[in-house]
């Protein structure tokens, strides 16, 4: 049985002429243990879909069943509890509480479950060890690097043993090395049987996913399964298309001859010099 069943779901913001359709009649089923990568240009509805699946938002029309339960019409507090027990979030900007230690940040979902402090911190420590941050337990977020923060955020998402982990551009703020570490971690988490939904702009990262969907204008335009570790065919082709884009540029008027002229530095220097001169003349005048 699919863990997530969404059918005919639409999400419309605003009214009348100002209405924006963020999700347009989306239907998707996600099985337990899938690693779903969601791609698409900005404004295509990726984040709205994530928020809807993550119970932060609800569809204007359509149905959404999470683990067989219809959650679209569920009341706010019930949804909060569903979210707490079933969903772990990993955000692009980490979203750890700045004035709380890492271990307490990680144990936060357990706090809202009503777990006692000792039990909570024990569990958080175990998860922090899993993500390789046992030595940073009592650090504060501002003392950690971006990669470490995202690992802590993943630990927080895992601490509650949720059925789904939603990661919205988890590597968007990270350098390539940290990106690799975080993606390896997410890959491991997936291998342990977790369901992961990840929004990304980086086609290379779809290598970690078992299924890729593409969204445009609020609709899912392409849905493809792929073996973990391999680039799905469409991404492969897209990347090749990017490589061949010089041809298009040539046709648009930028010739290889012009491109060959070293132009990175000279114009910049010129403009700087002009600026300096003008400021000098201004000074003289004054």
């Amino acid at each position, binding site marked *: 049985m699919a863990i997530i069943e969404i059918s005919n779901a639409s999400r419309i913001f605003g009214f009348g002429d100002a209405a924006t359709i963020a999700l347009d009649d989306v239907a998707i089923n996600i099985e337990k243990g899938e690693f779903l990568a969601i791609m698409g240009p900005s404004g295509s509805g990726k984040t709205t879909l994530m*928020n809807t699946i*993550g119970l*932060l*938002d609800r569809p204007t029309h359509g149905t959404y069943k999470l683990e067989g339960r219809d959650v679209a019409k569920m009341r*706010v*507090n019930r949804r*909060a*509890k569903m*979210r*707490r*027990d079933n969903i772990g*979030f990993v*955000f692009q900007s980490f*979203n*750890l*509480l700045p*004035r*709380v230690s890492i271990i307490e940040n990680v144990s*936060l*979902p357990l*706090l*809202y*479950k*009503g*777990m*006692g*402090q000792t039990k909570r911190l024990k569990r958080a420590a175990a998860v922090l060890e899993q993500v390789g941050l046992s030595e940073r337990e009592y650090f504060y977020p501002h003392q950690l690097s971006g990669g470490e923060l995202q690992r802590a955020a993943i630990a*927080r998402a895992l601490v*509650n043993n949720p059925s789904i982990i939603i990661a919205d551009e988890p590597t968007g703020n990270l350098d390539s090395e940290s990106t690799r570490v975080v993606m390896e971690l997410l890959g491991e988490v997936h291998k342990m049987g977790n369901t992961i939904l990840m929004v990304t702009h980086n086609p290379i990262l779809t290598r970690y996913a078992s299924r890729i969907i593409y969204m445009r204008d609020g609709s899912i335009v392409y849905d493809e399964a792929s073996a973990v570790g391999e680039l799905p065919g469409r991404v492969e082709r897209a990347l090749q298309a990017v490589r061949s884009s010089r041809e298009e540029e040539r046709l648009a008027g930028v010739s290889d001859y012009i491109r060959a002229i070293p132009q990175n530095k000279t114009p910049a220097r010129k403009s700087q010099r002009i600026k300096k001169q003008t400021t000098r003349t201004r000074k003289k005048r004054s």
Partner: protein
Amino acid sequence: MSMTKEHIKMAFATMSQSRTRSFMTMLGIIISVAAVITIVGLGHGLRNQVSGQIGKLGSNLILVQPGQTATSSVDLTSLQSLASQRGTLTEQDYTSITKLPGIKQISPVATISGLPRFENKTMERASIVGSNDKLPDIIGKEIEYGSFFGPNDTNKNHAVIGRGVASELFGENVPIGKSFSIRNSEFIVTGVFTQSPVTPLSPSINFNNAIVIPYNKAKEIGGASLQFIQILVVAESAETSQALANNIQNTIKANHGGQQDFSVLQQEEALAISDGVFSQLTMFITGAAIIALIVGGIGVMNIMFASVSERTREIGIRKAVGATNKQIINQFMTEAIIITFSGGILGILLASVTILTIRVTTSLQPAFVLPIMALALAVTTAIGLASGILPALKAAKKDPIESLR
């Protein structure tokens, strides 16, 4: 339960992170709580002092005072009326009371104007009181040095002085045997009263600054300036006290041509008057303090609103990890209550320090009134609840998606 504990911990953590702001927020609450407790303490202290004095007089005592003192529905002006209607009791009233049956002891308390002079020093604050040998016994006043004048000294130029007079006029503690003059008559100090606690707002004489001379002498040198402040009458027994009081009432009324321009008070009535005055004072001050507390509460509400706006992201994060609206409301409510409650505690501490300082440095004896402290804590908690509810609801209503953007 564990959740509440966590919320309290979080509230303290938040407060300690912005100490100055939290303290400033509390300041309004602290000051108003401290003011209420101190002033109510002062009131209670005064009342205890006054009723202690009145209570010491014994239950058989009947006070005859000039002026009409309302015994029911007392208001603050009664003290003034009491002061402004001096002089309605006369020598004739005194002598007619002495002839009544059932009197165990009687003592006049009359003042004369006059400036006591010792060598080159004078003392303006001193009140010169004419009375008889029964006075110390009736009002329970003790003599520290020397002795009070006896029944045979009624025409002697003897004076018993208070500690204040001893030090201010004579510049020593025991000026017994020293002579000084009042209205050109020489008096010899024969005794010094024990230091008595000063009781502000009490209509009776401050014996620390009193010079007591025999009544006959006062009459002789005071002339027309002689004014009766009180006539103290002790009935033979508690049973006959009421009858005697009625008797005195009728006698003086007859003397005054049917005018009720005097009061005959028994102990309970005297207590009731002072209690009435103080409870009214306390009411006024409590009213002012309640307004101050409300203003303080509005301050807390403002800060809580600011705090909710500032912590939008935090609220978003908490909601994303599964906090219910109720849990968010509880968190912010707890914070508001902790702020006002801590303000209450600090206010009580400040009040205690103030009360102790007043006790040590002045003759006032403000009391630690535990019920008002408990009430202050209850009220500050209520104010926390009231001022936290709107910001907490605002926090709970925040859309997590907007908050996390």
